[in-house]
């Protein structure tokens, strides 16, 4: 597979995946509320199109640069994340020896992007959303760091290709049962969803997105959906064996397996965002620092003992 095909396939996956997340969201919302689904397949596209033709607005004295660039930064981070994912056993678009650390950088820069989105608006609700998100987004990132280091231990490498190869016998989701559930919570935080949506939630009238309208709002929402695809592809790579398939398949089927696994993680992510309970930020912080962070550390110690020669 040459580079142009790989770039094209990645773009297709990101666009199709973002649309799929929006469809999943509508199904989940309809199931939870026990109401008819409505316009399922075209609905997300219609919502996006109506945003694209509506006017943009301006707040009073925003930080113009960050106000303009924050949605683009969020979107770019989603694409950087998916570029790291090895779609076949031969490699990824960006194949570097410290791939999983670069994914960590994507996570931390996402917190920066969401903060700047809320802070630069110079308005009350976006600002509250920004500070609230940082307070919860940083500790959940620590949890994901422990989880990812644990996943890198059996591979004895920080390269995502090596982490995929280390799952040839047993997927990490079985070997490290704490990993995927904790990583899914990080996914909720990265994509501003469900109980971890402290940035853009309805209790702040939209939070960092409250003052947005028009095309920039469409880009921001698209970036959230794209980040969900990027996160799911990464979770499928690290915990579900990535492009590895059953023994009867051939290596050429790798991208197909990865796409299917990504769709499964997407469905789990959407279900978690609609089913898990919301908490006030202070209780969420207590849960994070006293339960989830020690739990991830226990998982890391167990993975270390298991991987020790």
């Amino acid at each position: 597979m040459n580079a142009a095909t790989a770039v094209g396939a990645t773009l297709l996956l990101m666009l199709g995946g973002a649309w799929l997340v929006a469809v999943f969201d509508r199904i989940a919302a309809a199931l939870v509320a026990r109401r008819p689904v409505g316009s399922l397949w075209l609905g997300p596209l219609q919502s996006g199109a109506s945003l694209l033709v509506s006017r943009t607005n301006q707040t009073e004295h925003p930080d113009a640069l960050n106000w303009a660039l924050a949605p683009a930064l969020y979107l770019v981070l989603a694409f950087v994340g998916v570029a790291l994912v090895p779609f076949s056993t031969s490699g990824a678009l960006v194949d570097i020896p410290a791939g999983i650390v670069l994914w960590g950088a994507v996570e931390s820069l996402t917190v920066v992007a969401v903060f700047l989105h809320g802070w630069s608006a110079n308005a009350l609700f976006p600002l509250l959303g920004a500070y609230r998100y940082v307070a919860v987004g940083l500790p959940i990132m620590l949890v994901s760091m422990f989880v990812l280091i644990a996943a890198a231990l059996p591979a004895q490498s920080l390269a995502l290709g090596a982490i995929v190869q280390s799952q040839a016998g047993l997927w990490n989701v079985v070997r490290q049962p704490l990993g995927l559930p904790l990583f899914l919570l990080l996914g909720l935080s990265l994509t501003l969803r469900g109980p971890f949506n402290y940035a853009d939630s309805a209790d702040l009238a939209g939070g960092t997105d409250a003052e947005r309208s028009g095309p920039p709002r469409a880009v921001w929402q698209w970036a959230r959906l794209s980040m969900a695809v990027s996160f799911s592809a990464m979770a499928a790579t690290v915990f579900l064996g990535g492009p590895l398939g059953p023994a009867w398949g051939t290596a050429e089927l790798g991208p197909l397996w990865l796409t299917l696994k990504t769709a499964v993680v997407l469905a789990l992510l959407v279900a978690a965002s609609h089913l898990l309970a919301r908490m006030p930020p202070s209780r969420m912080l207590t849960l994070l620092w006293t339960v989830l962070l020690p739990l991830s550390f226990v998982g890391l110690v167990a993975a270390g003992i298991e991987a020790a020669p």
Partner: protein
Amino acid sequence: MNDLISGIDIAFWALAAIAVLSGWRVFATDSMVRASFLLLLSFMAVAGIMLLLAAPYIGVATIFMMAVEMMVMAVFMVMFMMNPAGLNPMSMVHQQPLAIGAGVVAFIGLSAAVLTSPLPDQPVAADHRAIHALGIEMLGDSMLIFESAGVALLSAMIGSVILSSRSGRFGPADPGSRPPGLCEGGLPAGSVPDENKNHGMGHGMQHDTPNAAPQDTHGAHGAQGS
């Protein structure tokens, strides 16, 4: 290879220019949040130079760590300074003679270190496991240094939390964090926490009237409420 200017040269000079310019803007901007993220931009440009030098782990880890650190720094600065949400313009330079002196000394020292130390000029072999070697070094011979630095940073963090919390070991922090009055000797905007007469919840309007006698108003109101 004998080209006058290669793509890597252009990338190096562009990243170096971004690093220096954004580093300068850190001290020219008037906002704590902008200063933090301009510093992050400067560090990210340096991390890009690390990537050009074929040090992928150090480059990527710099981006990762600095993004977290600058985010935490912005939040902590806003917490410590009396600047609501970091939105008010304020000068980012202070103690200038001392700072200029320290800057000149650091610049001379670092330049001397670069110019006098033997810089490596051998390309690293393609199959060399640089990240593995770095890990062995950090948790082998250099472990004491890194662990000492880690413990020192941790104690600094705990110290800053103690200093910023309201009921630290030096007593309540409210007097130090109370904003200035709206008029000379008057009350600040918003409600004032009052430990003795805890009836102030929801009666913040009373305190916003600068001309009213604060204690009498509050006492009457408290009696009314109880």
